[in-house]
């Protein structure tokens, strides 16, 4: 069964990078450009895993994760946040919001797929 991964990032470059890595590993990829959009796509596609950026317009990653976690339909979906090495405080905040795990940018494709495997049932 092909797993669906939702990627939420306002940067086209980052979305393309994620898509390349994930599609290459056999995942079905759906994309959203910010947290608000992410919530819409979420209900349309019911992804198995979500990967989200933190800094985004409209609804940022923290808000997005919190919104997913309070929704009974989606709260069991694993969420990986994209974070940077230099930002431990952001990682902490994302975890408090309910992030399942994280991916350090810049990521390498194997690490990314590995992280998904770790959290995906």
């Amino acid at each position, binding site marked *: 069964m092909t797993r669906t991964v939702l990627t939420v990032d*306002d*940067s*086209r*470059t*980052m979305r*393309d*990078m994620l*898509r*390349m*890595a*994930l*599609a*290459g*590993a*056999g*995942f*079905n*990829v*759906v*994309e*959203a*450009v910010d947290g608000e*959009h992410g919530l819409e*796509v979420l209900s349309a596609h019911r992804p198995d895993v979500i990967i989200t*950026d933190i*800094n*985004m*317009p409209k609804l940022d990653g923290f808000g997005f994760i919190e919104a997913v*976690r309070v929704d009974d339909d989606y*709260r*069991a*979906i*694993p*969420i990986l946040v*994209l974070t*940077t090495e*230099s*930002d*431990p*405080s952001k990682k*902490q*905040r994302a*975890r*408090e919001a*309910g*992030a*399942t*795990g*994280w991916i350090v*940018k*810049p*990521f390498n*494709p*194997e690490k990314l*797929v590995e992280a998904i*495997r*770790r*959290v*995906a*049932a």
Partner: protein
Amino acid sequence: MDELEAIKVTFFQECEELLADLEGGLLAMQDGNDDGDTVNAVFRAVHSIKGGAGAFGLEPLVRFAHVFETLLDALRSNEIPGTPDLTALLLRASDVLADHVSAARGLGVVDMDVSAAMAAELKIATDPNAAPAAPAPVAAAPVDAAPQYVDAAPIVIGADDALDDDDLGFDFQPMTITLDAQAADAAVLDGNVWTVSIRPKSDLYRKANETALLLRELSRLGPIQATLDDSALPALEFIDPEAAYVTWSVRLETDQGEEAIREVFEFVDGDCELEITRGEAPAADVLASLLDVAAPAPELAPAAIEAPVEAPVVAAAPAPEPAAPAPVSAPAPAPVAANAPAAPAAKPAQIDVPGPGQSVIRVDPERIDRLIDLVGELVINQAMLAQRVGEYGIAPSSNLAMGLDELEQLTREIQDSVMAIRAQPVKSVFQRMPRLVREVANMTGKQARLVMDGENTEVDKTVIERLSDPITHMLRNAIDHGLESPEERKAAGKNPEGVVRLAALHRSGRIVIEVQDDGKGINRERVHSIAVKKGLISPDLQLTDEEIDNLIFLPGFSTADKISDVSGRGVGMDVVKRSVQALGGRISIASRPGQGSTFTLSLPLTLAVLDGMVVDVAGETLVIPLACIVESLRPKAEEIRPLGPVGSVLAVRDSFVPLIDVGLTLNYRDRSPAATEGVVLLVEGEDGSRAALVADAIHGQRQVVIKSLEQNYQQVEGVAAATILGDGRVALILDVDAVINLRRRGPPLPSDPTLIAAE
């Protein structure tokens, strides 16, 4: 890795947009609009550039962006106050960032001294006390604050499925899960056996982590035996479905070290109590130690029954490991990659972030160019067909003629649509200008503010690419030569900050770019004397103000007292004028002493097609751009008046316009026939001046495909380009303004007394 290269192209395109956003946001801040959204957007722009750059390993760019981002982060979290000085610093930093982006792209180099100095400035602005210590991260509330449900009662399964099964709590038996049948047989090498005890907290499940997955991960390191202790599980009525109650003890055989085992639990760090010990732990001991922590007196016996069961949870243990992403082209709908690192062909102005539903197709610009060429051929072909049909004398009401009309209609629509694909707002050029203005102002010690207008005016890509140089030149000129120094301005009672206005608009089928300054205007006396000194004009030539102004376009003219860094170096306005003319464009200047100057540049909207009027002049077929034509008329003799020795004017309603014989101007003939015998086309030049062009006959309107004369032959004064007509003949396209100007300068002394001798 083509796909990666394509993403890199995307990245640099995105960088352009982000840099524009950055600059736009900073300029908004400069104008006092520094609300949180603006600052956040500015931060995100730099952050995204850094993120992408990191992905491509563009180190210098990442480093600079990081310093920049740190300052912006401090600003947006109100750690440092926003001030005009800070905004000015940020603007300069954005310029350096843009340099880094260009350098990363392979266009130009970064002055590392400038970059380092800027980085240092940014650091000081971030933390004026500038101990070079690492900035302490804002203390976050400790994550693993005491879990609320720790000493409540257990439930086994993570989060969701739990509640569905009412009798789950009753039937659950402690059991051992053997993940590898061979585990039991394996010779136990003491050094390779680990005991891992896991006691999840409810937070682990709240974050959608899952114990079963942790066990699965452990099993990837080697054979495991997991023992579940549910002794802390309370009676059903006391169970909190959201809480975690059970403890797992796992015997793991692996040749990997503790590090690898810890890594499995990286994501649940703090969300479970984890103990990793080397060696076999007697089950009882483990349980005992755990029981110390757990709630006492469980109703169910904590006996760990050795019942090797293949737990369904773990059935999927050899996880479907997705193949490592090879550099294979993805099966996903990857965007059509543009090969050339050129700008996207049709860049939607607003939609820069297509969602999954609405996708933007990126197309190789060459494909569009090819399409446009083909449509051009189609137009010519269609015209030929129409002409042939006409020659056969087929009635316009016949089916054939009507079908042809429809074909013409369709051809036009196709052409318009194709041209629209390539049309782009001039924004892409305009957005580079604020930086230029800042730099030039800095260099020349002027204070200048750039006001832009009409950035969304669309024009064909072929034209856009050629706009940048002339605009750059005109702006430099406006600041360097146009604006006065702040002191001079104050003395003249003006605001010390000069305003330079850059505007784009459509006017009569062309795009017009205006560069206007509120400086001192052209010093006509000086211009005149310089032109005389340089031998460009004869001293006794009487010139109008306008003509003097236009002397600055003469080759070899430069008014700067000293060759400045900015607009000197011998590249004068004449170069601009020539490059503009080569595009079928024109440039003119209007100036008012003390109030400033306006440069007006006009170019065709496209360099591909043109609507024209086909006329006959002295046996030659010419095309006059329809955009210039106001009306056509047959003059009566009494409407024509002589003016001076050679000229004549035509009375059109209540004004007089100069009468110009095209044949004479282009040297097709040396004597003009009487204007009354021909047809007169009233045309309007770029500057609004009118003239009446005399032709012998009119053939009608036609859309023609422009073929460059310069590329195929050479530039000819008075001729803008050439085209191929329906019958296959080549016709020249008239450059109306040039013809008017040729006439103004006066034709080489005419041999015939007057144009309108025939009365």
